[in-house]
């Protein structure tokens, strides 16, 4: 057992005590399952006893819970994967009117989620470096969206935002992702209140504020059940077409804004559209993971994995009949999200899910269905969780991530694989993120959006 995980164990015990205190304060009684250790849960889950999973909860876990005496790499990966699923359930919990989780219901019905009430990057990094409006106050949508209708989210991005990645010398080829209906996938990056508060208090929302801050950004903060620490969420959405089964997706009505600044020759436009969630990164800065914990989920119908049977009737991003289609190739330029149809991207997942992650997915999907037989959330799967194996190694600030490579097929479509420095690694890539003044930005490229 490493010293780090002995410390983690002590941390977990402390968190458990804090969490219980929080439950007592809020009048929520501990569930019987709360008495199970993670080792118990895993052992029972392996036996196919679904009830052995932690209860579906709106409470975002503060950190990984490692209970094994001498965990190996796979044990720890399992612990982080469990953390990912617990976090996925909590952030996708139905939101009450104030944006907080509706604790009087359970996850299942296709309702607006907690994280969809968080701040979108466009709302924080405003023109001229203006201070963002307070939490819970939204700035108006882009001018071109006025009169189009009311969406629950403004989806403005059509790719890894080029100006951000250009400034960090992003060497990878990226491009828009086109679904089987020929429509551009849209993306959004959201942050929770703890992260937003830190950006505001350190005045990191503007170039001038970052210059005055004049030191590396640091989102480390004390975690409590009510302040879970900084979380970012990047989501990907496809337009729901006539042939798409909407009952299989978490959907939203969104103002889909095409930013003329993203691609040359593209004009601004805005449509109110029904969008289906196809990908989700959840990134949480925890005490044991100063490099953040990187959890990535996808819709189960997205794409087949390399070397595995194409078991689905149809895929969101793969055409089984197209034998001539080149996999994971971006569409030819010029890229124009206003086009009525673009040749779909043929997507293949280059690194298949591990059997252990698949097993956990099956367990969680069953648990979600047992809570609600029609749960849309049972149609999502964890791809994997990247976490630091050497969080405090003096010669590796990236934390020596496990797994070494991790890609979401909808968010890093074109940089999948296992080529060092060439394939997607959440921590490896974001380790290079800086603010507009060139100082490190604590693994987020968001701060480069400051004006």
């Amino acid at each position, binding site marked *: 057992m490493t010293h780090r995980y002995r410390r983690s164990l002590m941390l977990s015990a402390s968190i458990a005590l804090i969490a219980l205190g929080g439950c007592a304060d809020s009048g929520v009684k501990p569930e019987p399952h709360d008495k199970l250790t993670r080792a118990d849960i895993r052992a029972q889950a392996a036996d196919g006893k679904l009830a052995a999973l932690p209860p579906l909860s709106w409470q975002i876990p503060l950190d990984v819970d490692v209970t094994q005496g001498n965990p190996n*790499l796979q044990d720890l990966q399992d612990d982080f994967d469990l953390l990912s699923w617990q976090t996925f359930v909590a952030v996708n919990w139905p939101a009450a009117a104030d944006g907080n989780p509706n604790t009087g219901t359970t996850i299942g019905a296709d309702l607006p989620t907690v994280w969809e009430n968080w701040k979108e990057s466009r709302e924080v990094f405003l023109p001229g470096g203006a201070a963002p409006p307070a939490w819970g106050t939204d700035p108006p949508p882009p001018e071109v969206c006025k009169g189009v209708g009311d969406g629950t989210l403004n989806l403005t991005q059509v790719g890894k935002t080029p100006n951000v990645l250009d400034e960090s010398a992003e060497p990878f080829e990226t491009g828009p992702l086109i679904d089987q209906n020929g429509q551009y996938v849209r993306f959004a990056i959201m942050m929770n209140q703890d992260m937003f508060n830190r950006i505001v208090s350190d005045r990191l929302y503007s170039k001038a504020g970052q210059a005055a801050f004049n030191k590396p950004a640091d989102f480390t903060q004390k975690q409590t059940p009510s302040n879970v620490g900084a979380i970012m969420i990047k989501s990907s959405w496809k337009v729901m077409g006539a042939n798409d089964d909407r009952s299989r997706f978490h959907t939203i009505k969104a103002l889909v804004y095409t930013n003329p600044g993203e691609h040359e020759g593209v004009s601004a436009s805005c449509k109110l559209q029904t969008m289906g969630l196809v990908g989700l990164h959840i990134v949480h800065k925890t005490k044991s993971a100063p490099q953040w914990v990187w959890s990535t989920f996808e819709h189960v119908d997205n794409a087949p994995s390399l070397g595995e049977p194409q078991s689905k009737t149809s895929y969101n991003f793969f055409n089984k009949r197209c034998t001539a289609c080149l996999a994971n190739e971006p569409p030819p330029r010029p890229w124009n999200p206003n086009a009525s149809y673009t040749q779909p991207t043929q997507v293949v997942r280059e690194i298949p899910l591990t059997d252990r992650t698949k097993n956990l997915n099956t367990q969680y999907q069953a648990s979600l269905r047992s809570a609600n037989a029609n749960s849309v959330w049972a149609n999502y799967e964890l791809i994997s969780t990247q976490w630091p194996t*050497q969080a405090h*190694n003096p*010669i*590796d600030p990236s934390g*020596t991530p*496990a797994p070494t490579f991790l890609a979401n097929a909808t968010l890093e479509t074109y940089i999948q694989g296992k080529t*060092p420095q060439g394939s997607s690694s959440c921590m490896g890539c974001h380790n290079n993120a800086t603010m507009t003044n060139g100082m*490190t930005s604590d693994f987020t490229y968001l701060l480069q959006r400051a004006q």
Partner: protein
Amino acid sequence: MDPMDTFISLSIGLTGFKRGALAPDDDTHDIKSLYLKTFVERVTQATVDDILLWYRLIDKQLLGNPPDREERVVTLLFADKPEYELPCRKLLFLWYAGAWPTVIDTPASTHGQTFSEVISADSYTQGLVWRVMQSHPMGSTTYNYGYWANPPPPLSAYLENPV
């Protein structure tokens, strides 16, 4: 000791690096498995089995538990079995350079040349030579942007920690 344990002990004795650096607890790269496989493929299974067997025999004969145990065993191994020295030197080269060497001996005063073949992209980045240099391979670094403005950590941090 299983073959991998013996292989790591032998490698510690050859390279001077600690076990945590060559075979960390949470081994995300698992370069040791690639190197053992390469050692077997390039030297032959029978020779590798012999080397590891002799290493274990000598290790058992060593009295006490000196801090440089592996290094002492390697010295005794080469004294007893000098024919193992060249393959072990090649293994040493593999750990440091991430490449397998082929030595072409000639009558020239330089005694020929050594050609090397990088085993994989991972072996290139995991070469111990970068850490002895307190540096990183060209085109690959775990440091964040702007690291070059700061002095590197002490050499001990490079030698004792896995990457």
